């Protein structure tokens, strides 16, 4: 599974011939290190702000009207170097220390062994305590169910050996999804290549996100993320 999920869309297209030959290996399988640790890298230099990811997520996950599990915030930034458009895709950060988990009074929010933070819809009481606790505004109360809702990294697709819908559809190839425990994964390679430039949102909250950004401009990041200036991110490599 991880071999497939480590590919971003462009990489997937390039590798199509090889994949076609090895189609039998598509069903989910553990990475070489055993338990995967899913993460996402967003290369802001590749994001064109088309919102294809937003639409794909809404369609895939039947997100109700006026709510979003992911979306691309768009800004015009004017500074000494000139004026430009700035994109910032946002989603659940699937934090290593998710502040939403301990506050849930019924244990409906939990972090799986593969790093994905999930909500058990059967157990959730819709108290919105987790919505308040998330510093990234990644959660919301689903108007249709009256329960907490958020990005799941499209866990149902990942379990089927597919990429999350937002990654699959990303026009610019800005979103890279993969297994941090797999040393040969695309995400590990891209993170290593961007060493020193990889950042996370609101590191001062100590949540240790598993969504990483490359190309996050420090001069504007402080205001756009609603937090302090970032330091290069610590990447939680569990295995490998």
């Amino acid at each position, binding site marked *: 599974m991880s071999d497939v999920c480590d590919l971003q869309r462009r990489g997937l297209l390039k590798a199509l011939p090889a994949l076609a030959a090895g189609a039998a290996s598509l069903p989910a399988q553990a990475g070489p290190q055993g338990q995967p640790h899913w993460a996402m890298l967003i290369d802001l230099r590749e994001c064109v*702000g088309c*919102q294809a990811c937003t639409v794909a997520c809404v369609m895939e996950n039947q997100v109700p009207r*006026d709510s*979003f599990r992911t*979306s*691309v*915030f*768009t*800004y*015009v*930034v*004017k*500074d*000494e170097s000139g004026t430009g*458009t*700035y994109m910032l895709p*946002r989603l659940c950060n699937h934090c290593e220390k998710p*502040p939403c988990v*301990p*506050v*849930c*009074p*019924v*244990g*409906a929010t939990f972090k799986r062994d593969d790093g994905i933070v999930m909500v058990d819809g059967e*157990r959730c*009481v*819709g*108290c*919105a*305590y987790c*919505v*308040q*606790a*998330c*510093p*990234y*505004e990644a959660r*919301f*109360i689903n108007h249709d169910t*009256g329960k907490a809702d958020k990005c799941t990294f499209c866990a149902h697709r990942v379990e089927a050996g597919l990429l999350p819908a937002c990654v699959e559809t990303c026009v610019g190839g800005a979103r890279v999804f993969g297994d941090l425990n797999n040393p040969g994964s695309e995400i590990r390679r891209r993170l290593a290549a961007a060493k020193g430039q990889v950042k996370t*949102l609101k590191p001062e*909250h100590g949540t240790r996100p598993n969504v990483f950004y490359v190309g996050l401009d420090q*001069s*504007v990041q402080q*205001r*756009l*993320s*609603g937090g302090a200036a970032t330091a290069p991110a610590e990447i939680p490599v569990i295995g490998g």
Partner: protein
Amino acid sequence: MNADIVTILSTRQDVSWLPWAVLYFFLIGLSVAAFVLSVPGIVLRRGSWIGISRRALLGAVLCGVTAPLALLSDLHQPGRFLNFYLHSNFSSWMAWGAYFIPLYLCSLLLYSWLALRPTLAAMGAQGGSATRWYARLAYGGHDSRTALAAAALLAAVGGLLVFVYTGMEVMILRSRPLWHTPMLPLLFVLTAFSGAIGMVHVLDRMLNAVTEDATRRLNRLLVAAQVAVLTANAAWLALGLAGWSASGAQAWSELAGVGAWRYAAAWAGTVTLVTLWLARRRPARGLLIGVLTLHSAWMIRWTILIGGQGVSRIGEGYSAYQLPLGFDGVLGLLGIAGLWLALYVVLISFLPWDNRAAAQGAAS
């Protein structure tokens, strides 16, 4: 490097703790504080407190019973409360609350029954169509001060735990700088006491049980409570302005420029000051003092809980909340207010709460 940033496209997160939640924090705070006010007259049998304590007990029961219903309404589906007991996650303050609320409420009801028991027995002996029921409710009518003190102690523990959990539940949220301060639980407690004093003022007038001595005593208490509220608010503001509290400084930077929040906060502060002035200079205006004090306690909670949710955690800007007319807003608030009023009508129709009955209950 300074940058001018214009947001072209973003999403706005809805307020997720609805007015019902504010109502819960308001009512449960009033209930616990009113219970404390009931102790001097009912448990300690201080003569000058008997009337005040009797109305405070009425207020504690009214608010204590209605508060959890407001909380259940905020769950969108009341039956979900069962999951609090089936799947308790004790790392959450809210989970503890699910145990503290019944502890407090049950002990409050037990305390109320023990306090009213002699009165019920007296009514059961008076004759009339309902005599039989009063006698049954009195269950012998024995006035046990030990049992009353024990029930009061249990309710006090429950009430203290309710104060602790309601404050901590909000205070620990680092994601919201306005809430992430130790001043918040303190302010919740102080405004609960001022609100409870205001509520007793109002109940005194609703029951036509006004006495000069009780009014003077309540005003004296109110002055102390409102001075404490204003001092706590000023300390909170000073901590933020001086930069001594990181969360306070951030909250101030986020909200200082927000007109809607600033006006609401200024209104809450002004009303608090007006009640302080009225209590000192126009002590006979008990109804006005009571209503305005309740309003100031409500406004402080509203400004913090609803106003605090308007601040974007992922960028700039403030989303002013517009109270909807439906059951998520005005209708919901009116519904709980109606329940409070209905319960009030039932309680005053069948039980005596005025000074004469209070004195009779204390004497028996």
